[in-house]
């Protein structure tokens, strides 16, 4: 028991001692252990590293080979693709060239031919010029026609005026109004008067029948435009029963003024009267009423009756026809004989020279 008590009293310190002795060794052991571990770990590390290096090398070789293989495959694909692309590019380029040429050709030939357009525009402008000229000509022609018509009208008016005032023409003795002696040339109106024929006396004007133009019929207000009847028909209460005609028509027919034919309107001895009238007019101009007989039969029937001068016993005096001077020489004024050529009268020497030369146009 004592040992037990002693053990128990020493248990704590035994433990402590035990622990303390082990721990000292432990430290040492630990140190050695650590050293051993370190050595071992280093060595193991070397081993593993060598192994890993070996593995790496192997893996690298495998991967290298594998990647080479893959790459070569890939490369083949790339080459194929590049080749294909190159071919396609070439084809495209060629196709573009063909299309370019074709499109140019098509547009130029079928859609838009530039030269054709230029030709067309030139042709259009030429046509325009031609049309413009033609229209100008047409307008000119129309204007000329109008001017001509106006001039002709003017001329007609002037001619009529000249014929009306024909009495203003100048004569050789009296210069007219348009032929003043102070002018060098006569007025043009003078020439017109010379050419114009004088108007005859105004004949009784035949009033033209009042004709209605169609357009103005309804606006015309003259009494003659209304459809008038000269005779008013009598006013009846109611029309007669029966197949009778309209009373206005009947009366119109009954009281229609006589419209004889031309032959009926002439008197029956018309030609005879006309002849008698003509002869009456002729007779006023006759000197005597005897017919003028031709010479061949005249001297057979009639005796020649000499005129009074020839049948009287008193003859003509010889003075004035055979001699012109006084018989009695004592009554002569001078001794010389008369001149046989007489000077002209002053009056008649100025004849035709008193007036301007202007009237004497050839």
């Amino acid at each position, binding site marked *: 028991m004592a040992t037990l008590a002693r053990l128990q009293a020493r248990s704590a310190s035994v433990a402590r001692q035990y622990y303390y002795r082990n721990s000292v060794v432990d430290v040492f052991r630990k140190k050695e252990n650590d050293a051993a571990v370190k050595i071992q770990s280093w060595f193991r590390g070397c081993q593993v590293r060598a192994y890993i290096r070996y593995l790496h090398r192997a893996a690298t070789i495998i991967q290298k080979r594998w990647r080479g293989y893959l790459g070569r495959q890939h490369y083949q694909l790339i080459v194929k693709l590049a080749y294909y692309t190159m071919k396609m590019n070439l084809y495209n380029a060629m196709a573009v060239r063909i299309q370019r040429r074709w499109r140019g050709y098509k547009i130029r030939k079928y859609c838009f031919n530039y030269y054709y357009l230029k030709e067309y525009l030139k042709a259009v402008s030429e046509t325009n010029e031609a049309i413009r000229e033609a229209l100008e000509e047409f307008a000119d022609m129309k204007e000329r026609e109008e001017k001509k018509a106006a001039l002709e009208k003017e001329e007609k008016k002037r001619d009529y005026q000249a014929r009306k005032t024909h009495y203003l023409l100048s004569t050789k003795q009296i210069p007219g109004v348009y032929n003043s002696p102070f002018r060098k040339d006569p007025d043009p109106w003078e020439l017109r008067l010379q050419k114009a024929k004088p108007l005859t006396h105004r004949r009784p004007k035949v009033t033209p029948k009042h004709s209605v133009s*169609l357009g103005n019929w309804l*606006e015309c207000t003259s009494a003659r435009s209304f459809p008038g009847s000269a005779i008013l028909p009598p006013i009846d209460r109611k029309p007669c029963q029966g197949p009778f005609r309209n009373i206005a028509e009947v009366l119109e027919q009954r009281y229609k003024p006589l419209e004889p034919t031309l032959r009926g309107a002439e008197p029956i001895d018309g030609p005879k009267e006309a002849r008698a009238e003509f002869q009456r007019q002729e007779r006023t101009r006759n000197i005597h009423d005897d017919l003028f007989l031709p010479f061949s039969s005249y001297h057979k029937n009639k005796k020649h009756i000499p005129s009074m001068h020839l049948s009287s016993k008193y003859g003509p005096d010889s003075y004035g026809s055979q001699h012109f001077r006084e018989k009695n020489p004592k009554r002569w004024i001078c001794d010389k004989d008369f001149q046989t050529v007489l000077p002209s009268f002053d009056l008649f020497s100025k004849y035709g020279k008193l007036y301007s030369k202007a009237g004497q146009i050839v």
Partner: protein
Amino acid sequence: MSQRQVLQVFEQYQKARTQFVQMVAELATRPQNIETLQNAGVMSLLRPLLLDVVPTIQQTAALALGRLANYNDDLAEAVVKGNILPQLVYSLAEQNRFYKKAAAFVLRAVGKHSPQLAQAIVDCGALDTLVICLEDFDPGVKEAAAWALGYIARHNAELSQAVVDAGAVPLLVLCIQEPEIALKRIAASALSDIAKHSPELAQTVVDAGAIAHLAQMILNPDAKLKRQVLSALSQIAKHSVDLAEMVVEAEIFPVVLTCLKDKDEYVKKNASTLIREIAKHTPELSQLIVNAGGVAAVIDCIGSCKGNIRLPGIMMLGYVAAHSENLAMAVIISKGVPQLSVCLSEEPEDHIKAAAAWALGQIGRYTPEHARAVAVTNTLPVLLSLYMSTESSEDLQVKSKKAIKNILQKCTYLPALEPFLYDAPPNILKHVVGQFSKVLPHDSKARRLFVTSGGLKKVQEIKAEPGSLLQEYINSINNCYPEEIVRYYSPGYSDTLLQRVDSYQPLIN
């Protein structure tokens, strides 16, 4: 009292009636009398006289009624309301030619005022009797009937259809062939009024063979007849391509071009209307007109007229140019553009200016060549001023804006564009700057000119939002020039220079 005295009373009465009706008819010719006549109740007095026993009084009463109804539509309505029309129509069939003329005159006078009155005439069955009158021997009766039918058909398509259904068209075509000029005129005018409403009616007129006769009458020297004939042909041609082709097949070109040189203004107007109606349908028809030299003739015609007479010619040029660029080039080489710009500047009316602006826009919108041809004549500033002016109508402003836009988008003629930099509104300025930005990078001479003329300076002064199209254009212009020049011309450069002078430390030795 003796019988004679009794009868004398009646004779006096008849004389009084005749005199009354003749005086009323005469007074009704003067407009100032008609008011007085109306107030005096002349309608109610004339109405029983239409039923008078004496035909003379009937005819004169009808004539007087016609003249009154002709004056204004109240009186015409009074004629309709007074139930006079059935009586007129009934006796139209039976009486002599004076009465027929007078009755047709009344129908014409009533029918001309409004569609309702014309419908009233149709409702009382007047059309059949009028068509019967068209077959009469007397040309005056035919003329009066044709005139009445023309006035009725003028208002709308239903009335025209009624006239056609009554069988008037073949008879009108026969009337055109008659020798009397007045009858030809009226018949042509009636056919024109019938054909103008719809293509079917025009087709009916064509089926009756009217085109050949109308085409022959273009050569007639009478001016009023030519007016009506050309108007009829243009009303036929305007509806569809087939009808226009039929009119062209009647060989009116180049004869119709001589009508463009006529002395009468309305003949010129109707001739250019006809050519316009033909040209507007298809490019082939326009081509035909161009090949026949029609464009030159129309341009000369525009030059010789003023005012509304020019308008169809201007529109014709626009239609021709609108079809294709070759035709627009044909218009340009026929010297159309100077003429149109003259019209644009000197016409006072807005609608004619609008038409000229539209036509110029159609010509210049295709290629730079076309735009240059328009820009060279200095029309763009005129168009701009019309667009900007507050007095122009809305239509004119819209059309000039479109024209400017269309021309500017293709214009590379820089001297014409430069004035626009100075006084154009922003929406147009955008296009102008855009055009500059397209042309300047490629042309060195133009760049030099742009700088020396002060255009670069102006461009720098334009304010634009960054990122907008305008800014991009300005940038591309600025990229054409070295930086110093751009900085030199930028606004406020002199201020920055002075600031630098202020802040400079002089080198003290």
